[in-house]
């Protein structure tokens, strides 16, 4: 493991990181995902060395760096909004880290020129950061960090402050850099799509704790608890009561309707989660032996561009997402009678909030 956090705790301005333990493998693209105020940035800044942890250790290549100042940690940090030095040109910005490390001028020139070429920034070398677009600024900030060949690159919300088009360009650039240079990256974001499209593993954070760590597939298929489920898009979350378990299926009573879920339920009282995209809508009576089918009435439709979010009252509210074309074809509107179907496997039993590291 190139980066290892052991039981890290840090209180800071009324907020606290609590017992955070993580491992990041050499060459891995790792994402820290969580809502605003989850403690992602505080964790990142503690790893870099801006805050000294109250407890725990930070190991870099098995070496304890907990008490080392930031400049001695061999970490590369790209903060939110890039923080390029406005009084230096692009070339000088990229050169900065090498200069601070006392690299000879000739070597600096070669290395910076090579990095600018690698990042496709040669034509911007003499420009001021103030004249660059958001995407270009991000690329310069990345080049400035990569040039010092850090053991781990730490990115704090790198795509947040740029427009969609630039975001796509930077995302592709991040993928390319990770693939070509095999750098280890820790990427902080509140955007699950961003995390899942880039990272090999994702740690979900909430209230200063790591709630779950896993691959995209494992997180989406088995959210550790209600928080993770809700955060990862399980918009239909209902309290229920276990009626019976039979042939690998759990029968859960939700507001008088019985829903079948694949897998076992540990407690009688439980919470079930269903993603809206796993719910199908039918305007004619529908039956299936492999899926739950509920009858209801359309309560609301929200146009989200290419898709429409349809809220159906079945005795409890269930949200389904429908492609715009299907929505128009089904001619759905408030009050339309519909039948919902969703597979047993798409019903997740969610635990109560319980930190879990894996």
């Amino acid at each position, binding site marked *: 493991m190139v980066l290892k956090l052991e039981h890290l705790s840090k209180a800071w301005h009324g907020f606290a990181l609590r017992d955070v333990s993580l491992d990041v493998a050499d060459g891995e693209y790792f994402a820290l995902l969580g809502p605003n105020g989850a403690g992602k940035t505080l964790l990142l800044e503690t790893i870099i060395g801006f805050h000294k942890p109250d407890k725990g250790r930070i190991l870099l290549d098995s070496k304890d760096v907990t008490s080392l100042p930031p400049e001695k940690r061999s970490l590369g940090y790209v903060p939110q*909004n890039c923080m390029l030095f406005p*009084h230096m040109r692009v070339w000088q910005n990229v050169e*900065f880290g090498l200069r601070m*490390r006392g690299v000879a001028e000739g070597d600096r020139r070669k290395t910076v020129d090579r990095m600018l070429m690698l990042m496709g920034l040669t034509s911007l070398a003499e420009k001021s*950061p103030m004249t660059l677009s958001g995407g270009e600024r991000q690329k310069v900030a990345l080049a400035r960090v990569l040039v010092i060949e850090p053991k781990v690159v730490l990115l704090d919300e790198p795509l947040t402050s740029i427009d969609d088009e630039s975001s796509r360009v930077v995302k592709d650039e991040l993928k390319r850099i990770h693939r070509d240079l095999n750098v280890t990256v820790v990427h902080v974001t509140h955007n699950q799509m961003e995390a899942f499209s880039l990272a090999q593993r994702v740690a979900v954070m909430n209230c200063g704790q790591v709630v779950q760590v896993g691959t995209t597939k494992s997180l989406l298929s088995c959210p550790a608890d209600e928080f993770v489920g809700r955060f990862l898009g399980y918009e239909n979350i209902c309290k229920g009561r276990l009626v019976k378990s039979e042939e690998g299926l759990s029968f859960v009573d939700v507001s008088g309707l019985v829903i079948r879920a694949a897998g076992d339920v540990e407690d009688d009282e439980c919470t079930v989660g269903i993603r809206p995209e796993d719910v199908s809508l039918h305007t004619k009576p529908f039956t299936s032996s492999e899926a739950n089918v509920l009858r209801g009435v359309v309560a609301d439709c929200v146009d989200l561009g290419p898709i429409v979010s349809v809220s159906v009252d079945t005795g409890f509210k269930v949200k389904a997402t429908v492609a715009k074309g299907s929505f128009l074809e089904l001619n759905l509107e408030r009050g339309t009678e519909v039948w919902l179907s969703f597979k047993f496997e798409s019903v997740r039993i969610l635990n109560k909030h319980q930190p879990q590291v894996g």
Partner: protein
Amino acid sequence: MAWLKQKSPFIVVSSVLGLVMALFIIVPIFGALTYSTGGLQNALASSVVTNAIFMSFYCALLATLFIFVFGIPFAYVLSKYEFPGKKAVDSLVDLPILIPHNAAGLALLVVLGRAYPIGSFLNSFGITFQDTIFGIVAAMAFVSCPFMIRSAQEAFSAVNPAMERTARSLGATNFKVFVHVTFPLALRGILTGCLLTWARAVAEFGAVVVLAEFPLTAPVLLYNLSSTGGLSVELAVTGLLILLAIVILVIFRIATSKPARPAY
């Protein structure tokens, strides 16, 4: 007047009040210049006058340098770090502006005067403050230091701490961050502080006259002329000082309006 009708009443009232303020500054200055024109040539020819003006400018420059060396680190610490008693120390910075300047001169006299312990100790090394350039510089520095410290403090505070932290993560020590990031970014504010400090020091009379009446500085000479030389001589020296101040201000504005590095 059509454009006036398009403006909001608030803008119109503000403009009128601002005009009164501008006239309040401009009229006395140009009045003094107008009345001084006749005697300007004589004033320029007088070595007493030119020596006094040189002494004022020279001592003010030394005072500015002194405050720069000690005041900039002080301003940096005040703007970037928290420490016990910071608010009290921060308030002390403004004290030299608040106390009457002749009282400031007296305060310096009881510390640096030959008859007092510290002054006597320094005198034994040949450093005397009463009626010497050292005294003038000390008096000027005392009353004008808040201008430098406050300007620098504001300029340092405007530098985003995230930028300084980024520099640290790239391998810069605290000192290197100051040299390569914080100071260059705060430079314009610091230069403005230098000008304000220097200008305030040039104009200082109260503290200087108590601690070091001689060698003569321009404000002290003006005071002496008011009792011996008559108004016309006094106005001529005043006009000369105003002209020099305008020239220096224009040069400074041109110099600081251009970025230190090629335009980005």
